């Protein structure tokens, strides 16, 4: 296995994390992608940009959110000491807003006047619609028809916030197709439009940029754990679809060898059932090129992209951020998986033992905590990124439990 001096230096100037990442976009977008990259580099070097972002994260988002000791869950599992990073307490109820604040400030800095975004579960769509309301910018959200049907509350939220939600009817009508449609919009409205990508994927500079905006999660965990326990955590667990909450939690710790990291993919009805029944790109896919980057993808022999499946609309994507693909290959992060059923069980356990209804996405991470914690010593400090709250999921969970609402 490769031993590197640092795991935190990527991407290189061409947007690569090892062989992953890159800029696989149509020529029409390429000049704009280069412009975004340049603008982002300049913004990062500008203390005023950082200052405004910090201010908004504090006053508007409500950061820092707590690192919470989940005492009852810890007792019940009888092993590792479990902490939740409470991203679900952010304004809009998920980690997605961290990235949206950063990107809309960049869009304004670039003089763009119109925002587009894709959404799966609707969390990123809501977060984008929110910052667009805050900064008074017109906003179009692309969402697959299938996801619109299973995430009605978030669709209504976006509309209340003044966004236009456009139903995507191509392909499997989920997140992947919403991203295709957003890219088609962008290529058509390249002069005035900024595309706020919701996860740490897409063409360079997005994967690194979204990671940077989400790294506030890991940075806070680091100082909060220092304050609470006087040391680093022993393991970090987060769900992975595109993987923005996971990379945000992991990245600040990548060079701390004592910290173990586990990303949890959606195994749907079971990985052994084949790639139409899960959404685990690393555990059940292979490298390919889609949506601007090389990464692990669910695909058939001919390189056609497969739809995948997860009970969670936010994890139902056939790819994963390129940095995760690289971290998997070099062995720094472990990628596990949890099924729909395991996530449903964790969802209910969390509600009953901690009084917290987690997002189904986050429940996949919790399922892994439930598997690992009992075998670990009591002084093992384990952090779960509770990336979102589950209010949006109660209808689909009720359906799976056979409850009529």
């Amino acid at each position, binding site marked *: 296995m490769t031993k590197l001096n640092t795991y935190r230096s990527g991407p290189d100037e061409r947007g690569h994390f090892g062989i992953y990442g890159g800029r696989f976009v149509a*020529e*029409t977008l390429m000049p704009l992608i280069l412009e975004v990259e340049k603008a982002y580099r300049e913004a990062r070097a500008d203390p005023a940009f950082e200052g405004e972002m910090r201010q908004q994260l504090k006053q508007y988002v409500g950061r820092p959110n707590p690192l919470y000791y989940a005492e009852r869950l810890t007792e019940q599992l009888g092993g590792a000491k479990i902490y939740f990073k409470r991203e679900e307490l952010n304004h809009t109820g998920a980690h997605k807003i961290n990235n949206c604040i950063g990107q809309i400030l960049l869009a304004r800095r670039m003089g763009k006047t119109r925002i587009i975004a894709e959404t799966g579960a609707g969390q990123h769509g809501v977060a984008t619609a929110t910052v667009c309301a805050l900064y008074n910018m017109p906003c179009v959200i692309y969402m697959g028809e299938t996801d619109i049907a299973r995430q009605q509350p978030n669709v209504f939220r976006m509309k209340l916030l003044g966004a236009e939600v456009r139903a995507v009817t*191509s392909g499997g009508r989920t997140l992947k197709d919403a991203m295709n449609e957003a890219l088609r919009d962008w290529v058509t409205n390249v002069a005035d439009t900024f595309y706020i990508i919701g996860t740490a994927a897409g063409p360079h500079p997005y994967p690194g940029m979204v990671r940077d905006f989400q790294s506030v999660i890991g940075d806070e965990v680091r100082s909060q754990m220092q304050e609470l326990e006087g040391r680093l955590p022993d393991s970090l667990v987060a769900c992975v679809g595109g993987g923005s909450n996971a990379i945000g939690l992991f990245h600040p710790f990548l060079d701390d060898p004592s910290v173990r990291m586990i990303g949890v993919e959606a195994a749907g009805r079971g990985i052994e059932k084949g790639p139409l029944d899960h959404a685990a790109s690393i555990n059940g896919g292979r490298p390919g090129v889609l949506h601007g980057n090389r990464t692990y*993808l669910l695909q058939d022999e001919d*390189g056609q992209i497969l739809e995948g499946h997860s009970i969670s609309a936010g994890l139902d994507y056939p790819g994963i951020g390129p940095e995760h693909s690289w971290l998997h290959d070099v062995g720094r992060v472990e990628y596990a998986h949890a099924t729909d059923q395991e996530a449903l069980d964790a969802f209910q356990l969390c509600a009953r033992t901690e009084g917290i209804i987690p997002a189904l996405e986050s429940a996949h991470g919790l399922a892994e905590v439930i598997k690992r914690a009992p075998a670990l010593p009591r002084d093992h400090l384990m952090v779960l990124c509770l990336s979102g709250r589950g209010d949006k999921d109660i209808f689909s969970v009720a359906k799976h439990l056979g409850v009529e609402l």
Partner: protein
Amino acid sequence: MSADPLSDGRIARRFKALKAEGRAGLVTFVTAGDPDPGTAQALLNGLPAAGADLIELGVPFTDPMADGPAIQASSLRALKAGMTVRKTLDLVRNFRRLDADTPIILMGYYNPIHAYGVEPFLAAAREAGVDGLIIVDLPPEEDEELCIPALKAGISFVRLTTPTTDDARMPAVMRNTSGFVYYVSIAGITGTASASGTAIDTAVARLKRHTDLPVAVGFGIKTPEQAAEVARIADAAVVGSAIVSRLAGGLDAAGTVGPGTVEDVLGFVRELAAGVRAARD
């Protein structure tokens, strides 16, 4: 066969012949395997006689991010009928038994080629009689992936330039381009808006300052009149979505091809060709 397939291959020879004739060429796009392999083969085989000077053969992909509804639907029909990269090359191989001269350029997205393997794909494509590639999601920044290996294998890599490609960027875009340059006349997806003649005129003049290669113009050309307008300005006019839509119009609700559909599509190509051929009279 010539010693250098890039400078003296089918594409170069065809543009040389068009220049000698004093007219622009018609480049027609059809999707491999749409709506089924047999119909696609019949259509492909009939294109040269209907007046196509060069052929772009779309390699179907599940996620055609730069394409509008017509070509998206066309790709999905082909995939549903079992089309693959391998079968696309079979179509080309069969075509070559009948036609040794008309250039064929495969157009599509990178992942199906990536999955096939770049070197095996290039060897198979060359053997089948493919002359060039247009891969939408491979800008010059990713030339090492496929462009440079393709040039080494004697297959042209035709670059797309767009209204957003500015003068500063143009040399980088032209650097490894061969065969011809494809000017995408609008910022957008295929088969939607059309650019004005004046805008195309300016753009082609700008491109000609950067390259000696022939310039083909496409995106948004739907009628023989529009094709003629472009043919007065550029070295070739590309028509894709309009042909694919004509084919779609000949399918029943189940996607089965009706009698006379291939002939109808070829008839439309004949009208386009007549427009292009009369443009400079």
